[in-house]
């Protein structure tokens, strides 16, 4: 099993890389994100699958992000993502607006080794109008039937947090299958896990159903509470107070800097 320390694993992420990130309900590698902030990795291209929140906002606020491709960036019940909003308004990041199924489909194209996948809808939207990389063609099986084609997205890294890893390097992701799609589509997969499992998930067909095989996994970090302050369903809830505190503090750039320093210091002390 490729069990690494968090600094070893995160060091594989290089400046300028495209990182695929899961939505907030799905296992976000927040401890690894703090390590990424410490290592100073920059010029990142964030691909939200299909949306992100605190994770993207921290990286944006710290100036580590060149481009965000997402269907949405939000802190959910804690409101707008303040540094994302400020960065878009100031024009300091390139925002590539997408829509959820387009991101899923572009990753599935990569998963299938295809140059593109078609998708219904989108026609007549400004999402499409602002995506010169998307094409509209006439459906060859139809008659005057325009349809959008999306080029495959192949991230350099898929980074996420999930429930457990076994001694063979397999991950158990349960029904969070977007994590599997991310891994299949990406050149490298780095996962942090809540727990380690002795043995082999494939020895039990009930567990096997929720497995992302080791064949797709490049680095695993044992990181209990690795999604905090976001939720890890079945383990801990979203730390709404922490995130609300963030939302308030990060309303200003100075507030963000102070909050982040305190947050990182608290993490190191823990």
């Amino acid at each position, binding site marked *: 099993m490729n069990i690494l320390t968090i600094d070893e694993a995160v060091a594989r992420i290089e400046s300028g890389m495209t990182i695929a990130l899961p939505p907030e309900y799905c296992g976000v590698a927040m401890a690894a994100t703090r390590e990424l902030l410490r290592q100073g990795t920059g010029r990142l291209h964030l691909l939200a699958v299909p949306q992100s929140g605190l994770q993207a906002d921290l990286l944006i606020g710290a100036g580590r992000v060149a481009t965000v491709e997402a269907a949405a960036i939000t802190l959910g019940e804690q409101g707008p993502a303040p540094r994302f909003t400020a960065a878009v308004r100031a024009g300091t990041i390139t925002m590539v607006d997408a829509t959820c199924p387009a991101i899923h*489909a572009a990753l599935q194209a990569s998963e299938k080794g295809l140059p593109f996948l078609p998708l219904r809808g989108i026609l007549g939207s400004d999402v499409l109008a602002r995506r010169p990389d998307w094409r509209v063609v006439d459906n060859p099986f139809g008659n005057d039937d*325009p349809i959008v084609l999306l080029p495959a997205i192949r991230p350099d890294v898929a980074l996420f947090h999930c429930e457990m890893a076994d001694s063979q390097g397999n991950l158990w992701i349960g029904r969070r299958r977007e994590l*599997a799609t991310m891994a299949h589509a990406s050149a490298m997969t780095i996962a942090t896990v809540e727990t380690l499992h002795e043995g082999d998930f494939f020895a039990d067909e009930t567990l096997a159903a929720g497995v992302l095989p080791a064949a797709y996994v490049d680095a695993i970090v044992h990181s209990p509470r690795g999604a905090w302050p976001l939720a890890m369903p079945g383990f801990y809830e979203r730390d709404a107070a922490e995130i609300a505190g963030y939302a308030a503090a990060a309303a200003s750039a100075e507030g963000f800097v102070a909050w982040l320093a305190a947050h990182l210091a608290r993490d190191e002390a823990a």
Partner: protein
Amino acid sequence: MSATTAFLIATLARQLAGARRVAVGALSPMPGSAAFLARAQGLGPRQITVLGSRSNNDFTEGGRELFDRAAQGRIDAFFLGGAQIDGAANVNLVAIGDHDRPRARFPGSFGSSYLYFLIPRIILFREEHTPRTLVDKVDFISAPGTSPANVYRPGGPTALVTGRCVFAFDRTKGRFLLESVHPWSSIEEVRDETGFAFDVPQDVPVTPSPDDATLALIAGPVREQIAETYPAFAAGL
């Protein structure tokens, strides 16, 4: 509990009559509550899927399943909000002003650009009913209200519920029609506070207020069911 909130939940729930399979997207506490209320009232929904929920979510294919299921025709109704909504039912979830240097930026289009085309009954909801939110023309089209006849589009908007009224949407005309006005408002007020032109029939009824049984459902099971995904909202119900 805010009486307005309960009123709007009950009003949204009526829009689900006969819709058996309802999905509720991100950032949608009132629509989510409306779906649970409609089910409790036996109005139609048997299957409710709340994005980001664990207990009200039967997806096992990950995030793409909502979109695939919609395309398969297995979802009857869905709610959509908008930072701006215009008279042609175009929806803006992205930005006000120039896209690259906007005056205001919102989270993003989510799945709207797709689901608006594929789910037969899309119920638009925006509580703030002012010329700022209901505009003549949106600054950014996350999803268009109508499409040319040759565009594959089994779905689209059927209604717009606001803090002042209910509009029905006429897909052929591509225009809203005033359907009912909430008890605390009036046709004149709706006209003044709406940034787009719309049709007004001869008789415009008052939107019915929820009865005690409905209020009890909202304060009871509905509140409990929505708490998993929107704890802060549920605490306020």
